[in-house]
């Protein structure tokens, strides 16, 4: 549609071979257009293919049908051009490299000069507020700090797009909320486009400009919820009436894809969301 789409997914489906010769449809008929500067979350039950969709956009796996464009070019070309940075659920840092060496890793793959490279690393460490830990090794950092190093590394090439695959799933709730604010700060400072896979409804609503709700077997996008919460989003955002309305809307969209649940359970879950439990 628009010339300013960073990601354009059209009619994509993905089938996996399963042992025994048959195949399993992970994704079916996915259409998704993501504009420059958007923050889009993919949320859904496990097995809905949200991570697979992210990996397809990153050309880490091939679609069975359909087309995927990143920055206006086919996904494989975008990967080769390093148009995106990826953050995985595990930090995937190399133990043998210090913090700054881990952030520098992608820059070492190109022939750029050393001074520029080191300047960029310093800049990135400043962005994630880890400048004081540049000579530390990953094992000396907490889980949240390790994930910040991974974010700095993903941004090293100044990509237009950051793909995040449940990056805070392994963190405790307090750290996760802090990391959410951190990601929003980085997002607004860099103007980068983010696609964020999560299974946490509060996290998706707090972060996103749009939440794509997915259902399982086969994986489809069943609804896209526009999140019109004002920015910058703060602690107060998490306590606002509109926030709870949107959390409920996303929850009901998720439920709608599996049939209605009973009202008691729904009330309990809402209470849990209000308590900040994902």
């Amino acid at each position: 549609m628009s010339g300013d789409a960073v990601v354009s997914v059209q009619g994509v489906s993905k089938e996996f071979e399963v042992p025994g010769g048959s195949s399993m449809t992970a994704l079916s008929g996915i259409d998704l257009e993501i504009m420059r500067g958007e923050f889009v979350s993919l949320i859904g039950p496990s097995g809905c293919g949200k991570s697979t969709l992210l990996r397809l956009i990153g050309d880490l796996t091939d679609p069975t049908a359909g087309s995927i464009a990143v920055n206006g070019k086919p996904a494989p070309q975008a990967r080769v051009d390093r148009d995106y940075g990826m953050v995985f659920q595990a930090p995937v840092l190399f133990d043998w490299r210090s913090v700054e060496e881990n952030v520098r890793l992608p820059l070492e793959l190109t022939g750029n000069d050393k001074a520029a490279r080191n300047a960029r690393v310093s800049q990135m460490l400043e962005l994630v507020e880890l400048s004081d830990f540049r000579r530390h090794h990953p094992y000396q950092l907490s889980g949240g700090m390790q994930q910040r190093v991974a974010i700095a590394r993903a941004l090293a090439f100044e990509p237009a797009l950051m793909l995040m695959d449940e990056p805070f799933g392994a963190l405790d709730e307090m750290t996760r909320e802090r990391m959410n604010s951190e990601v929003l700060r980085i997002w607004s400072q860099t103007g980068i486009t983010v696609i964020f896979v999560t299974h946490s409804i509060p996290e998706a609503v707090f972060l996103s400009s749009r939440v794509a709700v997915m259902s399982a077997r086969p994986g489809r996008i069943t609804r896209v919820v526009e999140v019109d919460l004002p920015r910058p989003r703060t602690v107060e955002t998490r306590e606002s009436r509109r926030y709870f309305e949107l959390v409920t809307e996303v929850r009901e969209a998720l439920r709608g894809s599996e049939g209605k649940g009973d009202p008691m359970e729904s009330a309990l879950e809402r209470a849990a969301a209000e308590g900040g439990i994902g």
Partner: protein
Amino acid sequence: MGYLARNLRRNLPAIIVFVAAIGLLEVWVRSMEVRAFLLPAPSSIVGALVENWEVGYQIWPAAQTTLLEAAGGLVIGTLLGIGVALVISRWPVARDVALPVAVAINAIPIIAFAPIANNWFGVLSPNSKMVIAAVLVFFPIMINVLRGLTEVPASSLELMRSYAARPATVFLKVRVPNALPFFLTGLKVAATLALIGAVVGEYFGGLNVALGRIVVQSASKLAFEVTWAAIIVASVVGIAMYLLIVSVERVVIPWHPAVRGERAT
């Protein structure tokens, strides 16, 4: 120096127990009048060691010879092991060919191979002992390096793929560092095996100034205190090789959990 002091404190109980055991052995052997060919008293072993250090059986020059053979075998076996592991990790087809052969080589009882190696590479030459040691060294090095090069976390490979890194880059920046701890683990095992290989080779003939020869000859003359002295020196040489590799490990992979764990205590 703080490091030395800490090490000493940590090892003090072991040292005390060791010294006490030697003392008890001495008292027991003397008081029960155990005959020397069954178990010589520690003091007479030390006496034999001093007496034959540079003259007589020449234990010190013999230890140098055996160390040289073991070290040579360690180097040859290590280079071969790394080379084969590199080829196998690069071309999976080679794995199907080379692994059964490697397993078969590893299954050869080294005692059976030693006389043949002596025959092939010269019974009086240190080369034959190095070859025997190398045969023992090859397998643990090859298997460990191969594991290190291939057992790379899938997430690390995916990360490198997201950066469109070339296979050569993945090899240098991920596979090789990943293999280092595996390699050093293999090297620790191999160092001890190399010494065993060298001594076994000497058993089946060679110049007399070598630890394995001293064991054979002194035992045939019932000079068991000399036999024991040679055995002790051989084990000291083995421990020295092992410790050398442990200290290399500290320098090369200070980030590895095994090394960090040692530091924490």
